[in-house]
């Protein structure tokens, strides 16, 4: 039986951690979506240098472990004179890392829109950017919703990386509580529950969105 006195005694710590995890996840979600879209467009835009930049970003970032990306922000940036606190460094690392995956998802979505759409739009006088904005992206979004949802769920779970650099998130406080109480198993079960509180609604929300968009098609 789980020791529920832990969650009562350490409620403040759990809540502080939960708050930071929510905050980090939301910021990283918005940030990585923005960066991801930009990088995806870079990768398929008819401008060579942009293609190279986009490809370099994706290949470089997604082939490094997340923890090392976070270390670069936390331990590396101070050497360049930019000191980021642990929460900021962790959230930035998470954003930059997830953006690489999101860029790939979105690129695949855009490429799955038939080529004729682009050609038709361009020949009816729309510019490249207009075509992207009004013709291609709205169609691509429907296609990318399910894989994008996966990325967001991963992002919430990956936010536990903040715990390693004392980022005050759920995992960090989980570690502290467990080393104080020695009731390791129970402590982390509660940590897992808090993650589920975030990820299950996210998962259901993505499913709902998917069904709605399928209908509107």
């Amino acid at each position, binding site marked *: 039986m789980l020791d529920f006195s832990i969650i009562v005694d350490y409620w403040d710590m759990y809540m502080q951690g939960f708050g930071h995890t929510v905050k980090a996840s939301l910021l990283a979600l918005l940030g990585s979506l923005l960066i991801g879209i930009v990088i995806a467009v870079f990768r398929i835009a008819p401008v060579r240098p942009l293609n190279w930049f986009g490809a370099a970003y994706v290949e470089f970032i997604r082939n490094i472990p997340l923890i090392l990306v976070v270390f670069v922000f*936390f*331990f*590396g940036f*101070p*050497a360049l004179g930019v*000191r980021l*606190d*642990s929460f900021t460094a962790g959230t930035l690392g998470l954003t930059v890392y997830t953006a690489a995956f999101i860029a790939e998802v979105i690129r695949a979505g855009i490429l799955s829109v038939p080529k004729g759409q682009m050609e038709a739009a361009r020949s009816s006088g729309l510019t490249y950017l207009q075509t992207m904005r009004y013709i291609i992206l709205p169609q691509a979004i429907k296609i990318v919703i399910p894989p994008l949802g996966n990325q967001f769920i991963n992002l919430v779970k990956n936010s536990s990386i903040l715990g*390693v*650099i*004392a980022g005050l998130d759920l995992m*960090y406080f989980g*570690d*502290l509580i*467990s*080393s*104080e109480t020695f009731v390791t198993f129970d402590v982390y079960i509660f940590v897992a529950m808090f993650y589920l509180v975030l990820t299950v609604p996210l998962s259901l929300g993505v499913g709902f969105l998917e069904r709605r968009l399928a209908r509107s098609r």
Partner: protein
Amino acid sequence: MKWKNVWKKVIGIGLTAMLSATMLVGCSGGTETGGEDKTKETSTTEGNTLEKIKERGKLVVGVKYDLNLFGLKDPQTGKVEGFDIDIAKGLAKKILGDENKIELKEVTSKTRIPMLNNGEIDAIIATMTITEERKKEVDFSDVYFKAGQSLLVKKDSNINGLKDIKKGVTVLTAKGSTSAQNIREKAPEATVLEFENYAEAFTALKAGQGDALTTDNAILFGMAKQDPNYRVVDETFTEEPYGIAVRKGDQEFLQVINEYLKELKESGEYDKIYEKWMGQKPKQ
């Protein structure tokens, strides 16, 4: 047919692994028994230790083999070196007139008292904290090293002790350590950040992510030695005085040891040994 071959391989590999494991265990066991044989001749607990040492012509001391700065066996040369070792050698010189008339034996925190009490070693010089509990089993000399929790700071930092750990100061340490609990108790205003281990905490300190790193000064001295841009503050805010342990009731031997420690400090030799290993002079 195919599966049979696979199973054969799996079992083969398993057996080889087990065999090599037993061989390894066997090897280490062998060296231990070798050690025990030798000790039999010295394992007479009766009588005066001081006379025994002189008779034998060498001092047998239990030291640690795995502790940086205090007693560490260099895997390349096989030599054991450290602060404790230098203290032990000085004692051999005091008693026998030659610092090389010494035999070092590896002890762990678990084995040291049994080994002392069954006569395998004459004394323990192995980062042993003097406690009331242990005083029931052995006698301790005067303090020869003041260990305790302290702070590692940048050389030019204006943090000089616990009193400077105020609100707005960030202290780094490792997760789940007693050091973390202590600093929270003693400086409740400060921000405490806990990392996976001390190496990471030190990296964070170097990256300017905190103002001080706290743990046992023995560990901090090692860090300060590795990066001379950092220093250990003089104050220790927990007390873990190290003493040399001898068998209970071994008054004559204990007196010589205390005399030796006194001479060591008065002659300035102690400061030299301290600075050699800790990288800075002992506090007064």
